[in-house]
């Protein structure tokens, strides 16, 4: 986030008056394959209100601005402190977590409108709730774990240097929210799991592949991961639009991870050609 963004948001927070009414425009959809429509709700804003608290008000009294009683809006959330990623949605056209989205920053004046839409690259379950299981499928596809399961004790693992730990820590903060995928022009909606083995993996799983490739025990599966990354949907399909790194709420250096994997598959390609 740029400093001007920060300054603009701080200014908006200072000017916002509690007790004002704000319009929340929600893209509604009753279920997979059903048509969607917009409904607008007027919400009274308290100091510190966020999108989830507004959705709670709407759930308590689901009446649109036209006065029509409707069904409560469905959404997903968990931690309410931007660490689980469940509440991710598109707010005013950009993807982000809704629990950490302050109304004072987005709608500082009476009558301001905030538009909420479900994430665009995952199948909608209902309203703002999407099914993000493709991300977990992709973690499995890339074997994004440390292989330690066995029938006997493997003893202590290799020593890890503090520098390596430091580098991996950033990558490990990924909360599988999917912002990086929703904003990526190469990652497209794929309703059917049948295509998930060849469709673009995206930055989230690239980060995790690098995390486990740079872990001394995790590296046992390094070549398996690289093989997947060299195939259809792998890191070779990244188009370097670099939206992923811009929208990642955890500020994970995703484009550096992509370039590192690019180097790793280049080396793997030569090794494969000349030695195996």
């Amino acid at each position, binding site marked *: 986030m740029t400093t001007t963004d920060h300054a603009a948001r701080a200014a908006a927070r200072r000017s916002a008056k509690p007790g004002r009414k704000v319009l929340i425009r929600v893209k509604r959809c009753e279920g997979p394959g059903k048509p969607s429509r917009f409904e607008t709700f007027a919400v009274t804003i308290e100091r510190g209100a966020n999108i989830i608290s507004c959705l709670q008000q709407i759930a308590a009294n689901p009446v649109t601005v036209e006065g029509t009683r409707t069904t409560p809006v469905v959404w997903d959330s968990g931690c309410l402190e931007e660490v689980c990623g469940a509440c991710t949605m598109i707010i005013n056209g950009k993807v982000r977590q809704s629990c950490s989205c302050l109304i004072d920053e987005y709608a500082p004046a009476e009558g301001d409108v905030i538009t909420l839409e479900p994430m665009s690259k995952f199948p909608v379950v209902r309203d703002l709730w999407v099914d993000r299981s493709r991300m977990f499928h992709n973690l499995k596809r890339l074997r994004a774990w440390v292989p330690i399961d066995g029938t006997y004790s493997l003893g202590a693992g290799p020593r890890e240097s503090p520098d390596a730990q430091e580098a991996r820590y950033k990558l490990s903060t990924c909360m599988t929210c999917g912002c990086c995928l929703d*904003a990526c*022009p190469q990652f497209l909606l794929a309703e059917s799991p049948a295509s998930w083995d060849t469709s673009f993996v995206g930055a989230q799983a690239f980060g995790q592949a690098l995390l486990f490739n740079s872990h001394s025990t995790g590296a046992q599966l390094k070549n*398996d991961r690289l093989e997947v990354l060299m195939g259809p949907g792998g890191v*070779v399909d990244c188009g370097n639009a670099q*939206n992923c790194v*811009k929208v990642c709420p955890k500020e994970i250096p995703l484009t550096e991870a992509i*370039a590192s994997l690019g180097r790793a*598959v280049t080396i793997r390609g030569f090794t494969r050609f000349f030695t195996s």
Partner: protein
Amino acid sequence: MTTAHTQSHQGPLDRNYFLLRRLHSLTGVVPIGVFLLFHLTTNASVVWGMLDSREGEALRERGVRTFQNEVDFIHSTPFLFLVEIFGLWLPIAFHSILGLYYAKTGKGNTASYGWAANRRYSLQRLSGYVGVLFLFYHVATLRWHWTFLMPGGVAWDGERAASTLALVLRGASEAALEAGASYTLGGVIVSLFYMLGVSLLVYHFANGLWTAAITWGLTISQKAQQRWGVVCAGLGVALMALAWSSLLGFMTLDPKDAAAIERSHSGHKGPAMQLGDSQH
């Protein structure tokens, strides 16, 4: 492991996916990008050639002569046709066909996310699309002599390189010029298409060089990517300058003056040069 299993139902395109991807990237730089560099430098000789002017020469004369020398030099390359096919046309066809296919796998979203790198991503694809059209038109008309695509039916003639190029950009045959025409509407359109096509391809190459470094894993840190970005932008500006100076050079060249210079130029090279003249 499962990779062996998943490979068993993959077609040859999927099995060689990595190789094709890397060859696409490589062909963009070598030979296509390197050719672009030489090609634009050669073309701009109609301008930088003037730096070499002799005493008593008209202002544009040495430019026309230098350009003619460059063209003659290229045409004297042994097995030129084979070099063209394997060094240029096949790599360009390969890069273009795969490029069109890859471009179709993405869906630009600059309306929601208007960041610079994202706009460059979209422009890389747009410049590819326009680039194929432009390159096809360029090669078909100038190299394969599909004169029916040329306003005024002008044919480029390697023996009279500069003057016929000036005619091409004016969209006017020599006869039309005699009758007092300067630029025809068709010529204006061709000239604008050249400006657009060449600029987009220069952008495409410069930005491609930037992304290729990430693709291959040469630039990893953000700092390194920025540093290489400055180099690529610098190269892009230099190539733009070459491209525009040659275009403006040919567009402002008087075809009749240039033809007169070329006649005296080919004169000392023997009777074979008369062939080009006899066509007109």
